[in-house]
């Protein structure tokens, strides 16, 4: 019987070389040359957008092109009285943007420009009795927020402020029969959420809960004939999963289980040869989100022109080293 598989076909016209300079230009002009509609529409995630852009610039050695002072002033204005940080000025605080802000400040070695004590209290206040975390005061629970909370606190050296054992217990309760993790207990395994859960267990040193061979196999099953990776069975490949699947495999010490050359070919094909930047799939419009994950994936795959990235934090390795953090990784 025929094998039906959702995938794409790469054509020879897609880029095959890494267009580093174009990516730097793409990021530095993003938000200047963009059309107004897009800028309005992304305001609600601006802080994460800044994190994606800056991390990309640092990984390709172009961070000095960004005005550091502007960014620091912006972050300062985004912290509210309760200590949390919002996506933009006047937006409500949220764990997602609080982590992005802490990642940026860690990169700039400027954590002292925000009120760290209040920020820690804010993160702490979002932990629930079952160990899970809400994203904000409105109570949406998701394993993404478990990752955000521990990543954020560990960068601040304040992990002991929350109940780590309970937090781990919740994440482990989201493990499925296929070895993967979902957003909540019973939710389907999903590569993005697997990354969050493995990252969380890596930071807290609890990777022994994972069946590394079973999950490693599920993750390398995500590679399709085109070389690209999807996030769940029978879904299309997307550059952002190159990061989430790959970082997860690296945490598990099983990165070599995917076929490196064909993934590199797929990721490179997702570059926009005119504007720079990466898109989800070849030929689509590029954006900073897919650009950082494309560059970070290539870094994990050993591209020498990109600085090493830490698989747990999605931050430059030298920053994680400077902070003295050693998130757990498995080796075969």
């Amino acid at each position, binding site marked *: 019987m025929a094998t039906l598989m959702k995938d794409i076909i790469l054509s020879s016209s897609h880029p095959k070389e890494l267009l580093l300079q174009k990516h730097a230009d793409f990021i530095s002009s993003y938000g200047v040359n963009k059309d107004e509609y897009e800028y309005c529409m992304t305001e609600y995630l601006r802080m994460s957008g800044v994190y994606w852009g800056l991390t990309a610039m640092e990984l390709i050695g172009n961070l000095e092109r960004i005005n550091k002072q502007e960014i620091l002033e912006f972050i300062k204005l985004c912290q509210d009285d309760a200590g949390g940080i919002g*996506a933009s000025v006047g937006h409500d605080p949220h764990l997602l943007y609080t982590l992005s802000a802490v990642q940026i400040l860690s990169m700039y070695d400027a954590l002292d420009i925000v009120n760290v004590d209040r920020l820690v209290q804010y993160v702490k206040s979002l932990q629930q009795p079952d160990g899970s975390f809400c994203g904000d005061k409105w109570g949406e629970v998701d394993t993404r927020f478990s990752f955000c909370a521990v990543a954020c606190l560990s960068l601040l050296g304040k992990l002991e402020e929350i109940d780590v054992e309970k937090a781990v217990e919740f994440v482990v309760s989201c493990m499925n029969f296929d070895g993967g993790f979902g957003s909540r207990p019973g939710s389907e395994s999903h590569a993005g959420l697997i990354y969050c859960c493995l990252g969380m267990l890596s930071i807290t040193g609890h990777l022994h809960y994972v069946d590394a061979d079973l999950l490693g196999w599920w993750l*390398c099953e995500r590679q399709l004939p085109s070389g690209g990776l999807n996030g769940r069975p029978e879904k299309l490949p997307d550059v952002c999963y190159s990061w989430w699947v790959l970082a997860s495999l690296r945490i598990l010490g099983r990165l070599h289980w*995917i076929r490196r050359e064909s993934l590199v070919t797929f990721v490179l094909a997702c570059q926009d040869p005119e504007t720079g930047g990466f898109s989800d799939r070849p030929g689509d419009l590029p954006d900073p989100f897919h650009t950082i994950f494309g560059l970070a994936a290539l870094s994990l795959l050993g591209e020498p022109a990109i600085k090493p990235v830490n698989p747990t934090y999605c931050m430059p390795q030298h920053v994680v080293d400077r902070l003295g953090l050693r998130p757990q990784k498995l080796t075969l």
Partner: protein
Amino acid sequence: MAEADSSSEELYDETNWVLYKYRVDWKDVTPVPQDDGPYPIVAIVYSEKFQDIYDYFRAVLKSSEKSERALQLTKDALDLNPANYTVWQYRREILKHLNKDLIPELQYVKEMIEDNPKNYQVWHHRRIIVEWLQDPAYELSLTETILSQDSKNYHAWQHRQWIIRTFKLFQNELQYVNQLLDEDVRNNSAWNQRYFVINNTTGFKPDVVQQELMFTLDKIKTVSNNESAWNYLRGVLLHHDGGISQDQNVRQVCEELYSSGNRSPFLLAFLVDMCEENMERDDGDKEESLRRALQLCDVLANEYDTIRREYWNYMARSLAQRMDCPEREATGSTKTD
């Protein structure tokens, strides 16, 4: 531009839009422009309508105005950007404050979900309204509508699981799962839902395990190259006393598929796991199990699943090693860095 003398929605349709700054009933409010601080990160060029609406939104947020017109303003703001979580939060505060009837709100958020089915905020708003109402009456049909357009929509499944678990609506769920699997037997979300339902109702008791094995084997016989079905089969067998290798039906179906020439990587992978388990059993022919497992890993690596060659080579090495020192578990060889 003509001034409006009423705030009624109908007045301001697409063709007839009146900016808030020209509306008589908003004359008392001073708009608050966006302030990104002394160094705006980028030069902001808002469209006039967007800027107008959000300037007035910031103004009501600042003055904490919780009125009918502010409620309408949040709707206009959300029409322009349904992902703005701050607007949703403020809308909820207004709904609470005005003690609004929440049934029309359900209708409104349904429309928003239909237009933005992959947006976190719209689904979360829905959940909060349902929690306030404590009424799950419309939720199954809403999620079915969304899943009929995209049968793997993660938000819809998440919402559906929450509803089913919270309001104990497991009763007809397997039927729904069956219907989805009839439409697309590779729908991993539906297989996951199947596990969710059984795990939260009967549990995987021996008779349920048998029933689920029959169901799954039947699907595998029709479409064998289906990752989801094989994963589910393993999931069910986690609850089987005989592990994955001792169930007669499972063995028979797998061997028959293999004999008939089927070389789906998932079938071969499953046979490898059966061999592995046999190697660990006292009564099995260890040498023969290992020989077969290594042969399967070899054809997987070099013929049927070459993209995962490194994984199959690893499996082969780890099986051979275990034969030499049987006390080592597969994952026992994993060290922490």
